[in-house]
């Protein structure tokens, strides 16, 4: 499994340098500021869309779910890294690096866990709206392998953690729904929700 993972990494990262345009696009996508900020902005838009108050409330609770999924996915990665720490690909391999050298462990991918937490949260609220963020996160994961900072298994691990966490957060959100609705009602006094 590990050797397949490494072989796949070497094959994908080996493509670096073959097309300057692709390298430039990947350098942009892999940035810490494009996909995470883009998903954050999508959540901001979600707060306002919805033609009626009931639909908007569903979206706004969805925003809470997405943010909680993101935070708990990050926490799960942190806990896993206490027990298991995998070195980054550029430590063990001769890598074509398109990004800076991150200092945190490689497995599971923290960035993918966080962004996937948001994208899967959106999927739970509105399937159609989630297509773009899920594709974006897919490219983000692929770009991080291409750029030489993650193995494919790190990306899959991050996405799996996010899926699991988001599933539980959705279950939990049904239990705390009265609390969330109360928070939104307070927001309505200030015309914020």
């Amino acid at each position, binding site marked *: 499994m590990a050797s397949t993972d490494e072989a796949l990494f070497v094959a994908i990262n080996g493509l670096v340098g073959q097309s300057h345009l692709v390298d430039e696009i990947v*350098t*942009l996508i*892999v*940035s*810490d*500021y*494009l996909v*995470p*900020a883009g998903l*954050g*902005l*999508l959540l*901001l*838009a*979600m*707060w*306002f*869309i*919805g*033609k*009626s*108050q009931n639909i*908007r409330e569903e979206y706004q609770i969805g925003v809470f779910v997405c943010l909680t999924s993101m935070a708990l996915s*990050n926490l799960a990665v942190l806990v896993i890294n206490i027990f298991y720490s995998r070195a980054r690909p550029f430590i063990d391999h001769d890598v074509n690096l398109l*990004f*800076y*050298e*991150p*200092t945190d462990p490689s497995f599971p991918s923290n960035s993918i866990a*966080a962004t996937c937490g948001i994208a899967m949260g959106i999927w739970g609220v509105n399937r159609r709206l989630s297509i773009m963020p899920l594709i974006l996160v897919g490219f983000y994961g692929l770009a991080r392998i291409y750029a030489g900072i993650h193995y494919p298994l790190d990306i899959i691990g991050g996405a799996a953690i996010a899926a699991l966490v988001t599933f539980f957060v959705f279950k939990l959100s049904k239990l705390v729904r009265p609390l969330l609705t*109360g928070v*939104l*009602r*307070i*927001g*309505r*006094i*200030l*015309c*914020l*929700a």
Partner: protein
Amino acid sequence: MFTFTIDYFILIILASIGVIQLGALYGGLKGLLFSKSIVFTHFVGFSLPVTAFTWFFMTDSRNINDYAGGLDSNIQALLFFLGALTGWILTTILSFIINIHMKRKDLSPFEGLDSLKKTNYFNALIFNLKYWRSNWRLQMKRYLLR
């Protein structure tokens, strides 16, 4: 570090103003819009984030580790929140100035954002605050526990 922080903050402010315009358009919140024109709102909604991101990535190298001048995830999240909040405040002020004559009397204090379909933000806010100041004891239990 400081320039990077300011740049990211400006990026989020500009992009969030555009995104709020799109959200308000699709939510029918006319009191938040800068223009009644759907085409113009789409233009502002898409061009502001695209321009902001283009400016952000074109002006400097942004793939920098947090200990070398980049932003760590906590600072990034905080700046995002502050930037979006500033974008929201600027949107409400600008849309209030543009929609200053958009006043309706048939508002309900329970509508929240929905009241922005009929009036501008500050008109709705003042109406709500007046209502809640005089009725908060009566309404709090009924409203929150409804």
